[in-house]
């Protein structure tokens, strides 16, 4: 659910920015932006999964204590 909410806000921001973009940008800049964004999305997904895994471990440890 949180992932969907974050994705929603990212989409909103991207759309707002796309509307504010000047039109005279070279294709190379768009390509570079796309590549970096794809790399970033992969990295963000990895961090998100790592966060979830650590949260699960913490919860398991608390359960074991009880």
């Amino acid at each position, binding site marked *: 659910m949180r992932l969907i909410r974050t994705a929603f806000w990212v989409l909103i921001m991207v759309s707002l*920015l796309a509307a504010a*973009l000047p039109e005279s940008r070279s294709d190379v*800049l768009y390509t570079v932006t796309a590549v970096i*964004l794809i790399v970033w*999305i992969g990295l963000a997904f990895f961090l998100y999964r790592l966060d979830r895994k650590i949260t699960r471990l913490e919860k398991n440890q608390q359960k074991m204590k009880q």
Partner: protein
Amino acid sequence: MLIRQVIKSFYILMPLAILMAFLWAPSAEILGDFSRIIYFHVPLAWVSVLAFLVSGVLSAAYLFDKKQRYPWLDEKAFNSASIGMAFALLAVITGSLWAKLTWGSFWNWDPRETSIVVILLIYIAYFSLRSALAGNDRRGVIGSSYLILAMMTLPFFVFLAPRIYDSLHPETIINADRTPHLDDRMRMTLLISIFAFTSLYAYILHLMNRALAVAKRLEEEYHAAD
């Protein structure tokens, strides 16, 4: 809770910073599109200095916290120094690429480049020292003392040395006029990028510290079961 939300803001700020850096901010007059590296190079350098400062402060807290009310502060300082090292290396790589594009060579022994080499050597020595002291009871105290000394050299290498000698680097943002000479959109993009990278650092440090706490608790349980 609010702090957690703030440090997670990088999920939104980072793609925003990337889009602004490449598509919204204008290119610099002389440097052209190469100037867009500034939106990554400067935040990386800033975060590395911040991470080293945090590691120094955590080390000082570790030495003062005799009753160990805050556990594993020396390990948390190590985590921050590790992130600082990674970001400093990335700052060197991006800076080196930028130097090749604008000054014609990857490395020029400019005062700022020289000072970052010295800082990297200081922190590489810390990691060597810490790994050499594995299993030693005094590891935390010695490592923390070293990190405080390393932190005290930072203002000289980051702020003073590059200002004493002539540099290929442009005038710093905190300059003699006390005003940043940047276009409004460039300034806004740089600020967003700095916030994004700072929250990314805080998030990674938070993750590493949580993983550390889980590992330490497991270790304690294992020893308790023995």
